[in-house]
């Protein structure tokens, strides 16, 4: 039987976001993820920490990567998984999403991993089901495991978060990755910059201690990390910038920009990346890019989150 002791600091049976987690709680997740990564030989092997449990993916929005990552994470810990997607399910017959979740729970599912286009839906779900709820993305509000895997990658490569200057670049307004990163990074003492077109980066962020920049070139020399967000065509209501070409001109990470960046800068992206839009192939595949490390760390973070929430639920957390 594999052994792992959950830190006492972790008492949550749900993970809905990073905004209200303490620095200590975030650190527990990162430490647990690192341990699990080691125990599985780099997320390759299997453990039996969640053997006998069932984890359901309830995805109301399309996703292959995140869903696959959660499924693999669950199975690497020995859990059984099932997938529900909204199309073709009883939702199309008029069932409310809460009834759908309750029906799934009634099949003795231990955890529901939920992705939905509307912010707050995981929160509503958590109030209405007994099992663990993990937010895999609620609209542009939060994507906690993405934020965590990004932070884990920075910590792994640079040793710490405190004092780092991390710039999130792109469509901040519609990005759950950006928001989760902002909360997590700030809690751990990083200086966060949000950089993008003025139609997509609100000055309100300054009230929360985040630096706002419209010019990537202006901030580039100060950045230890760049996290390049994807331009999200499917989430925008009206085009807030004129063309992909113009976006790339102003914000794409190119070899030319790399030459003006810090020598040990980290290039990150949540993926999927649009080669030629927010990042050029030479940068995506270059020595500063840690994009694929992020993917591996995603598995580790998701294993950690599934195991920690499960442990807390077993201890009687609400």
């Amino acid at each position, binding site marked *: 039987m594999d052994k792992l002791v959950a830190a006492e600091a972790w008492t949550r049976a749900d993970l809905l976001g990073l905004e209200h987690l303490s620095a200590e709680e975030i650190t527990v997740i990162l430490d647990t993820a690192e341990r699990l990564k080691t125990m599985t030989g780099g997320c390759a092997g299997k453990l039996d920490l969640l053997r006998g449990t069932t984890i359901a993916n309830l995805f109301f929005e399309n996703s292959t990567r995140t869903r696959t990552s959660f499924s693999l994470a669950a199975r690497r810990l020995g859990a059984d998984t099932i997938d529900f997607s909204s199309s073709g399910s009883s939702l199309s017959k008029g069932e409310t999403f809460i009834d759908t979740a309750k029906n799934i729970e009634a099949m003795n599912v231990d955890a529901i991993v939920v992705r939905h286009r509307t912010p707050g839906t995981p929160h509503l779900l958590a109030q209405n089901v007994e099992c663990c709820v993990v937010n895999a993305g609620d609209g542009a509000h939060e994507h906690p495991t993405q934020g965590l895997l990004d932070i884990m990658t920075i910590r792994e490569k640079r040793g710490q978060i405190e004092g780092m200057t991390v710039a999130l670049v792109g469509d901040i307004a519609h990005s759950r990755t950006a928001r989760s990163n902002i909360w997590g990074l700030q809690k751990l003492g990083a200086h966060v910059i949000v950089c993008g077109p003025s139609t997509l980066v609100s000055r309100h962020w300054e009230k929360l201690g985040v630096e706002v920049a419209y010019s990537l070139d202006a901030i580039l020399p100060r950045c230890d990390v760049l996290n390049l967000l994807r331009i999200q065509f499917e989430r925008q*209501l009206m085009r807030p910038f004129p063309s992909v070409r113009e976006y790339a001109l102003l914000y794409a990470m190119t070899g030319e920009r790399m030459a003006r960046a810090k020598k040990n800068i980290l290039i990150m992206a949540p993926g999927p990346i649009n080669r030629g839009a927010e990042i050029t192939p030479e940068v995506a595949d270059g020595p500063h890019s840690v994009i694929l490390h992020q993917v591996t760390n995603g598995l580790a973070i998701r294993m950690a989150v599934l195991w920690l929430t499960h442990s807390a639920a077993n201890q009687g957390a609400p």
Partner: protein
Amino acid sequence: MSSILIKNGRVIDPSQGMDRVTNMLIEDGRITAYDVKVEEKPINGSMHLIDATGKIVAPGLIDMHVHLREPGREEDETIRSGTAAALAGGFTSIVCTPNTNPPMDSQGTVQFVQQQAAEADNCNVYPMACISKNRAGKELAEMGTLVEAGAVAFSDESSPVANSELMRRALEYLLMFDKPVLNHPQVAELTADGVMHEGLVSMVLALPGMPAEAEDVMTGRDLSLAESTGGKIHMMHISTAGSIDMIRRAKTRGVRVTAEVCPHHFSLTDEALRSFDSNFKMNPPLRDSNHLDACIAGLTDGTIDVIASDHAPHAVEKKMQELDQAPFGAISLETSLALVITNLIQPGHLDWMTALEKMTINPAQILGIAKGTLQIGSDADVTIIDPEDTWTVDPETFYSKSRNSPFVGKSLTGRADTVIVAGRVKFERGS
């Protein structure tokens, strides 16, 4: 008909500037005397004595913005349940909105509502009627016929009158009937898909916002049209500093504008949405503290004439949806008075006289109805209020069919104790 003697209550009647402890006599459905000595009137079977010691005796409260939902959405509320909720909230007269199904754009529907109200025999119900046919915002409804049928005011609520030419026509046409236009100021294209106030909180929560400008742009338009036509406009559920400022200045120029604010806009801010609870989703949305403060300032300086509930019941399952799917609105009849007392009177923003004015004589005058007063000879519509009664909001105990209150679990002070309509006791707390 029996008489009622209300003994030893603090009678506050803004229409007379009256505020004193005295006895009030009601006979044959009318207020007949004050300062009546109890011993003089024989207490026999036909005299009902109400001891109002420690209570406030006010003119029957008037709520000029209530969604009764019938006909068409009886699952949310009926005229019977809505008027029962009104009584429990202390209201003796309410004005119901025309966004029923079918809408109140014809004599038939207006008369149906009045008949249902008469049958329910709870509080008085005065119907609004639509400005446009089918509430479609294109052609004027037959307003003259609707006035004949009993309509007291005209609105396309919950839709704004988007077409400026239609608004101008409505203001001009209603001049001859001396009835007000009630508008819901909201520029639809500025609030597309909006779920809450646009500001810092909506940015953090990543919810599409409804900016203050969406209200201000149309308020400005309506004031301009009211000024040029000389028509009577009443701005519904005003929630922004900008609109209040414009209304204040328009009044100094003699524009015939009146305005109302809802209790949730002087009680809650957009911070409430951090819970993602759809009970806080309403239109106009809960805004930030600057706007809330402006609403209170507007109430204090008289810019805002009326406090109205915008009672918007929705069956439980409708609110139990994803936040962007849940309908806008909150039930409000049974908490309005307590919110006025707890959040306006107790903190010292308004005194009783000014607060009651906005719930009695002001709405009555705007609507042109002979209510909202305790002058001798007037209808005996009386609300006896316990100003000290502290209670916890539990919608399960409400008379409304719906449960969507943003104040669930909150401790509030003040409640209607006894409600008298046309000289008959229609509601008694605890019975």
